[in-house]
């Protein structure tokens, strides 16, 4: 792992705090990827970072890949489609702007097909039943399409010929499949190189060459087995799909590789998002390790929804004892504190595990809200907390 741009140069290397503003203000950084397990507030973090960057002067677009329309909710929008839409209500005085979009994987796939094949070949592919299932209903396609869309957005130019987006903030799919985002080029590559694909396509292009006839015979035997299992109609749909796609796979793969290189490059920063719960911290730790082993630029860890206290000096146990001695409203008030403080104490222990496991990774803690964030003001206030550079509390020394 190397430090992400914007963090090494300006932040104090001894500090454990994640300096979010330094990252967002660094013009060299063009892509911020928020990753983490489901339900930790990844989408909200991505939206809050994008809004803050926009209001600090960057031309920003936020891309969400999540099938549930959560980003729309937290941005107060009712609908998002496959093209970036300006977000109303953003303060543009610093010269920035904000647009948001949600990945429509079917439409992205269709566009790729249309852009890379002749009109009648495109029609042939788009009408293929196997293609229709693959592009819309099967899980996993979204990771490939996310790569595709990210590549498109980063290359998009405006009327003046300059790059349209200064900063692209990406939110990854929830849970384990977030990692598939990184695997897309490899998977695609190994599929395209696989003998299986060649066997599938061989009968269609065998022609007269001798070695191909042999291969074709092997494939014929395999086809017999596959036919028994899949039924002839499905197999021929798959074969004609693969044959039709064959011409565009090369460019598709090339771009997936370019996008991967871009993610690994010095203009990208990864942010791992977590919540102060045992499971979420374990997943976050897994993501940090994964980014490390892929040598991806990790900027920092965000721990969301951390219980904050307004009377931290009173330990939970003391409040509990006082509650048993209290009467009237004071009893309930003390119980509220005891429960919250108890939670706070256990969250701190959980977060400290993360800090112990990954001491060089800077972190920032975002306090929980008493109510959910559903509008731009809410996102703005999360942005302020993100920039407040409050790291995970230092773990106590091991006795």
């Amino acid at each position, binding site marked *: 792992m190397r430090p992400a741009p914007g963090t090494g140069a300006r932040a104090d290397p001894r500090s454990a705090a994640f300096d979010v503003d330094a990252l967002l203000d660094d013009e060299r950084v063009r892509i911020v990827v928020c990753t983490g*397990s*489901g*339900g930790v507030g990844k989408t909200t973090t991505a939206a809050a970072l994008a809004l803050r960057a926009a209001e600090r002067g960057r031309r920003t677009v936020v891309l969400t890949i*999540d099938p549930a329309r*959560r980003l729309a*909710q937290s941005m107060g929008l009712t609908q998002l489609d496959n093209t970036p839409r300006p977000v109303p209500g953003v303060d543009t005085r610093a010269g920035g702007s904000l647009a948001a979009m949600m990945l429509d994987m079917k439409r992205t796939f269709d566009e790729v097909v249309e852009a890379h094949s002749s009109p009648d070949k495109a029609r042939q592919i788009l009408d293929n039943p196997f293609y229709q*299932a*693959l592009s819309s*209903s*099967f*899980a996993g*396609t979204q990771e490939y399409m996310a790569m595709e869309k990210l590549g498109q957005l980063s290359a998009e130019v405006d009327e003046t010929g300059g790059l349209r987006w200064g900063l692209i903030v990406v939110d990854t799919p*929830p*849970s384990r499949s977030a990692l598939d985002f990184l695997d897309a080029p490899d*998977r*695609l590559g190994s599929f395209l190189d*696989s*003998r*299986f*694909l060649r066997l599938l396509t061989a009968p269609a292009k065998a022609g007269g060459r001798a070695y191909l006839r042999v291969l074709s015979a092997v494939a014929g035997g395999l086809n017999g*087995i596959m036919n028994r*299992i899949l*039924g002839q*109609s*499905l197999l021929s*749909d798959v074969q004609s799909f693969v044959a039709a796609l064959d011409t565009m796979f090369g460019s598709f793969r090339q771009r997936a590789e370019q996008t991967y290189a871009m993610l690994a490059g010095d203009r990208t920063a990864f942010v791992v998002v977590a919540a*102060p*719960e*045992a*499971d979420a911290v374990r997943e976050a730790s897994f993501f940090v390790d994964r980014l490390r082993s892929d040598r991806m630029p990790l900027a920092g860890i965000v721990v969301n929804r951390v219980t904050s206290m*307004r*009377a931290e*000096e*009173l330990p939970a146990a*003391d409040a509990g*004892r*006082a509650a048993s*001695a*209290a009467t*009237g*409203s*004071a*009893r*309930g*008030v*003390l*119980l*509220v*504190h005891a*429960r*919250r403080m*108890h*939670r706070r104490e*256990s969250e701190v*222990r*959980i977060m400290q595990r993360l800090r112990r496991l990954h001491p060089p990774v800077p972190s920032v803690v975002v306090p929980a809200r*008493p*109510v*959910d964030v*559903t509008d731009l003001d809410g996102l703005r206030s999360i942005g302020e907390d993100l920039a407040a550079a409050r790291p995970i509390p230092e773990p106590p020394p091991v006795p």
Partner: protein
Amino acid sequence: MDDERDRGVLPLLHGAQPTRAPGGGRRYRDPVLDALDPAVRLHVVTGKGGTGKTTVAAATALALARPGRRVLLTEVEGRQGLAQVFGHDPLPYLPTLLARSGAGQVHGLAVDAKAALLEYLEVFYRLGRAGRALERLGAVDFATTIAPGLRDVLLTGKVYDALRQRADGRRGEGVPAWDAVVLDGPPTGRIGRFLNVNEDLAGLARMGPVHSQAQSIMGVLTSPATVVHVVTLLEDMPVQETCDAVADLHDLGLRLGGVVVNQVRPPLLSPEDLRAALAGTLDRETVGADLVTALRTAGVGVPEGGPSLVEGLLDQAGEHASRVQAEDGHRKRLAELGLPMVDLPQLPGVAEGMDLAALHELADVLAGGSR
């Protein structure tokens, strides 16, 4: 009032009918388990990420096993989440005893797509060697990773197979190997697609064994033998996703079981105090004086920062009241779904990790207190 105090201690079973058990003890009929008559053999548990789906699936399995049933608890997301909540070593691709519960047993199975494919080829086509040849050619990788939809086909197929398995190891009519199967399913965003994948497949493979297998699986998933439970927290986004998922699943012809409201924290202030705290009209002088007295009585010194401590405590009471108010709103939205609802309490210290004792506590709630 007794009822008031119970709300703080007992789990809140909204929608459940409290009944008087013989001997005068209070018992709750649980709507989720009521929905789970023995005819239901597959319980699919879904929910937004972070709502505690795996925990609820595990507690449901324990509750179902109590009367002496053999229950298979399966996971399909490759996270080894079951091993984690039960504090068990990573599960192999074989049913493994996780816990005894009452007179019954819960076995765990982490379904792996690749192993499921090879097994499928072996069982249905006796393709032992050819199956390995397919693996060398990259066909197995193709089926399980490149074409991730087929992965869902294999995973649902394995669950279907577990339902058909007989105690003597064969398949079909006879004494089933498992009285019930609980599936810790994909999150709400993916559950509809996951459960419906065989419908898509049946459309793709218009004939042949895959077509008929896909149709049989869909037949079971849409029959009264299958119900889907949705886990949520009383927060905006999980509730929104619950509503979306319920609509989706309904449209797909899948039967819904219950909505499980997880990590419920009972209000700690009386209704009057909640209203006052919300309006900021809690009497600061009186309450403040009471707080100081209580702290002193308990032997907790109130230092120089006394007044600011009291202010902080009252602010927290106000935030507690706004949260309770927001939760009431979320609960109303859930109630509009018209499904049975069951509350599971937030257990102290559970943020630091689940353990078997905590799972049994939750299973007690689901089983209506019987053990």
